[in-house]
């Protein structure tokens, strides 16, 4: 397992998304109201770049004619065919057992701790004053 600095925290403020190349993989990064998500940027269905998907909730119902959008901001809808994935686990809503988006541990850390630790900062020269987004592969 290796930990990588993918960008500075300023580059992924709440409500934004971006991609980063890590170890030859393209990773989609999302900041939803301060919650960070990092997922392989390739839908398991047809390979769409899921960084272009819609962040939304999950439509629920107690029966015909009843509609509720719940857990807003916790799901990603693939831009190509609309499959829904839970951001925190990468699981497909329709088929949680066998279909999932590869997801990675992601966190924000202070530059101060980073300069000491065994991190691979591929692109980002780390300065002590800043915070950074770290993912684990």
């Amino acid at each position, binding site marked *: 397992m290796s930990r990588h600095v993918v960008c500075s925290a300023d580059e992924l403020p709440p409500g934004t998304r971006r991609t980063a190349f890590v170890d030859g993989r393209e990773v989609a990064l999302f900041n939803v109201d301060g919650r960070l998500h990092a997922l392989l940027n390739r839908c398991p269905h047809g390979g769409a770049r899921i960084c272009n998907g819609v962040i939304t909730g999950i439509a629920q119902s107690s029966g015909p004619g009843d509609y509720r959008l719940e857990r807003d901001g916790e799901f990603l809808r693939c831009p190509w065919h609309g499959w829904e994935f839970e951001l925190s686990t990468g699981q497909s809503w*329709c088929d949680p057992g066998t279909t999932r988006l590869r997801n990675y541990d992601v966190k924000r850390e202070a530059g101060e701790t980073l300069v000491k630790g065994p991190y691979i900062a591929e692109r980002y020269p780390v300065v002590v004053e800043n915070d950074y987004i770290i993912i684990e592969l």
Partner: protein
Amino acid sequence: MKLPYAGAIDCDLHLPAPTIAQLLPHLDDFWRDQIINRAIDRMPFAMMSYPPNAPISQRADWRAAPAATALETVQTQALDAFGLSFAIANIIHGAVALHNDDMAAALCRAVNDWLRVEWLEREPRLRGSILIHPQDVSQAVAEVERLASDGRFVQVLMLAMGERPLGRREFFPIYAAAERHGLVIAVHAGSTYRYAPTIVGWPCYQFEDYVAQAQAFENQTVSLIAEGVFQRFPRLKFVFLESGVSWLPVTMWRTDKTWRGARPETPWVDRWPSEIIREHLRLTTQPFDAPDAAAVAATIARIGSDDMLLFSTDYPHWQFEADDVLPEGLSPATLRKTLIDNALATYPRLAQEAIGGAAAIEETIR
């Protein structure tokens, strides 16, 4: 193939539709007067989907050799010939195509009473279907309620092509009544011709009309799933009669595939449509629409269950020759389920009776 043993339950047997003259005693004074004085009694009320002289409507050897009475004909040619323990009688009557809701309801009542008096009371192996005119939902519900206390009626009968898709909520009161009384909803091939029977427009030939029936069943399957009928009525079963079978796996696959992306549109569909279909839908075996044993086995494998098949003769429709009433390629276990067990699991009213009768059914199996 032939039936390997006696005791099968035939889930789609047709009795000759009553003439209007036969229905007159079962109509009240008002409707009898209307029917006679408007010369409606001269109309055949035969369904366009089954023109009486078309080869499909009656097998030639059966047509050529009637017994002394209609009852004896059905007994000799079907009930005895196939060694049936029960046969569910479906009467496809033109009343359901009328635009006058009240006349349609009156004629449906008469057909049902005629079935009860002329057939169910005379032949203990017969079971009945409650014919309704579903376009007038409240009268349809009233008819189901009127006959529900007679345990010999085991299902409610509708056509594959009416005015609106069968999943629509307007029909829910009919489904609620059926579920409440342990009745099944049966959907038989046929159209009231409110619309063209093909989605691309009016065809010219009966040949086209008959092929199009299977597509109507596909549409109804998707409607029932999308509208959440089985989420609302979890104990309800639908039986498709004369629908064909081999189209089903394709529809299941496509419905599952589309659901994955379109799911939020109908959030009450809370599991794979194919699972819901396997649990709630049943299809009769005549016709099966597959050429040989391998194709039949492949169809069942792709459906992923042999719980869905119900044996039928579709008597007297011309679906098979001699006594080759079964599709080829059913394993002995699937056969046993198709002939008896699936019907008992589908029809609560048959199962109730067969608790005493199960032993009897069992004994006839050699």
